[in-house]
């Protein structure tokens, strides 16, 4: 039995995996700090003798009517402010710029149809992508793991019900199902999207965990656990689940990629995030019919591509390193 360290070192030795981790860490960092990277309010400011701390997070009443640009215009001699890297808000419309303006020193990645800064929207859009990715994955990993464990462990009619349900759900074209649901629910937002993706994508995880449980159930330590009089719940959660965690983790990583892709596709088609919520797919949607606005296609497209590819590369590296047969080829 190989230790965890072997798995990690085998994984880290793959260059692709390192890149994947680096890209994902960057995207996570941007998502967490998006208010500090792009905002229409300063990070720290002294206006009319009053000190504002982190107005970009709390939006104090005194600064509410202003943006960084209007503040700078009316600043006195003793006033100062520290602006974020991108001094545009995700929903701030720049009256001084044309809609669909190409990249310039004012808007580094150009503006969209509503004169909003593309870079600011991309920075804030990373939140939507990651949130949808992680939340959907949490939902479907939970459902899939639970059903897979029960089906594999108890067998019999439990297995029949779960397996047939899995097969039934798998015959439905996932994308159109989600599209239809998002179309029918009028107030559909990010929350709905996460739940719908989560409720549809669990089938593969359930199959995977079921097979893993069937395999583990045969092993000596499960028989030993039964002989020691442990409850089924304890055997499932303490003895089977931790041993099945490897494949689940791999499935989760691929799942994040698939969910982000799904979110981008839905938003692109106009069934995902509402216009006020910045998202990568939503930005791409702005390029529809405006094909000369290459900055609306290229930059959000690259963001989706890099994030999804990183997840997939990481998932592949994890899968290979959990499998000792493949590990040797890697080394």
């Amino acid at each position, binding site marked *: 039995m190989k230790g965890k360290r072997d798995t990690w070192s085998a994984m880290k030795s793959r260059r692709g995996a390192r890149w994947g981790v680096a890209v994902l860490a960057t995207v996570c960092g941007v998502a967490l700090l998006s208010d500090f990277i792009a905002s229409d309010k300063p990070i720290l400011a002294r206006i009319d003798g009053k000190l504002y701390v982190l107005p970009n997070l709390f939006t104090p009443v005194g600064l509410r009517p202003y943006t960084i640009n209007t503040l700078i215009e009316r600043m006195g001699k003793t006033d100062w402010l520290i602006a974020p890297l991108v001094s545009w808000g995700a929903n701030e419309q720049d009256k001084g710029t044309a809609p669909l303006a190409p990249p310039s020193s004012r808007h580094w990645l150009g503006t969209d149809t509503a004169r909003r800064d593309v870079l600011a929207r991309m920075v804030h859009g990373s939140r939507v992508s990651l949130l949808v990715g992680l939340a959907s994955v949490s939902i479907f990993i939970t459902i899939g793991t639970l059903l897979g464990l029960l089906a594999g462990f108890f067998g019999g009619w439990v297995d029949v019900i779960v397996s047939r349900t899995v097969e039934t759900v798998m015959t439905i074209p996932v994308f159109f199902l989600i599209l239809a649901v998002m179309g029918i629910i009028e107030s559909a937002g990010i929350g709905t999207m996460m739940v719908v993706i989560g409720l549809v994508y669990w089938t593969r995880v359930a199959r995977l965990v079921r097979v893993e449980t069937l395999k583990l159930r045969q092993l000596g330590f499960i028989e030993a656990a039964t002989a020691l*009089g442990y409850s089924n719940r304890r055997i499932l959660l303490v003895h089977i689940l931790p041993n099945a965690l490897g494949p689940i983790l791999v499935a989760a990583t691929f799942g994040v990629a698939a969910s982000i892709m799904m979110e981008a596709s839905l938003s692109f088609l106009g069934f995902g995030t509402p216009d006020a919520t910045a998202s990568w797919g939503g930005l791409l949607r702005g390029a529809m019919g405006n094909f000369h606005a290459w900055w609306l296609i290229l930059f959000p497209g690259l963001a989706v591509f890099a994030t999804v590819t990183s997840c997939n590369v990481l998932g592949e590296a994890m899968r290979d390193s959990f499998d000792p047969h493949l590990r040797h080829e890697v080394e």
Partner: protein
Amino acid sequence: MSGEALLRVRNLVISFAIDGKDCPAVDGITFDLERGRTLALVGESGSGKTLTAVSILGLVQPPGVITGGSIDFDGTELVGATTNAFCAIRGRRVAMVFQEPMAALNPVMRIGDQIAEPLRAHLGLSRVAARDRAIDLLGKVGIGAPAQRVDNYPHQLSGGMRQRVMIAMALSCDPEILIADEPTTALDVTVQRQILALLRKMQRERHMAMLFVTHDLSLVENIADEVAVMYAGRIVERASVQQILTTPKHPYSRALWHASPARHRAGERLQAVPGNTPGLTQRPRGCPFHPRCPRALERCHQDVPAFDASVACFVPHS
């Protein structure tokens, strides 16, 4: 010497349905197990010894089914008992040590946690108290530096140490019966002796009853009080360990003894028992041992010899 019988097994039959026919793998077994005593079940592969042992814990796996007889544990009937009834016994009052110590330990769990788990699950001990008990138990089963070893994973231990950990797990809740299913088969010969000595010591200290399952007759001398020799699902001879080792009565016991390397001097030829244990579907009529028996008579082909006092044979050795 004899105490009260803690476990009474009567005419136990465990069958497998093969091609619609019930084939008994254990065919009418009867024995008693007393507190503070060790009974060894000895037999070849396929004799039904392991099946008998696991039936006490209700671990007979389908398609195997107990089709007859009774298992009385301290006044409780275990044949047909519910899973809940078994859960009250397993690990608490009856514990088991398995043949493969590698397979029987959870690879992703620290051994200390595995030993502490029955204490926490059954006795409701706190994490800290259970850990202290686990360290204490590790020391008792002869693992050096138990306070450090407690945080090891199974793959960091040798085979003998793993088996000691299994024994510590089994003993953690002070069971009344310990079932040891070929606990030394997967181990080196030198380690075998140590594990046997440990089992014997623990059994004596705790006044446990022990059911020791083995295919190796030479092991029983050091561990058992009584021996039941099994063949094709039946007990063919039951006697004290001295008697089995000096004057075995059943031809099969004698053949087993001759096949054991332990009693042989250098240069002497080992005598294998000719033939194989008959499969479940090919049990012969009459005495199941007669095709391999050097003393078989005409009668042995027709009738099944009844178990008489200590042996089931028409022509026992005297």
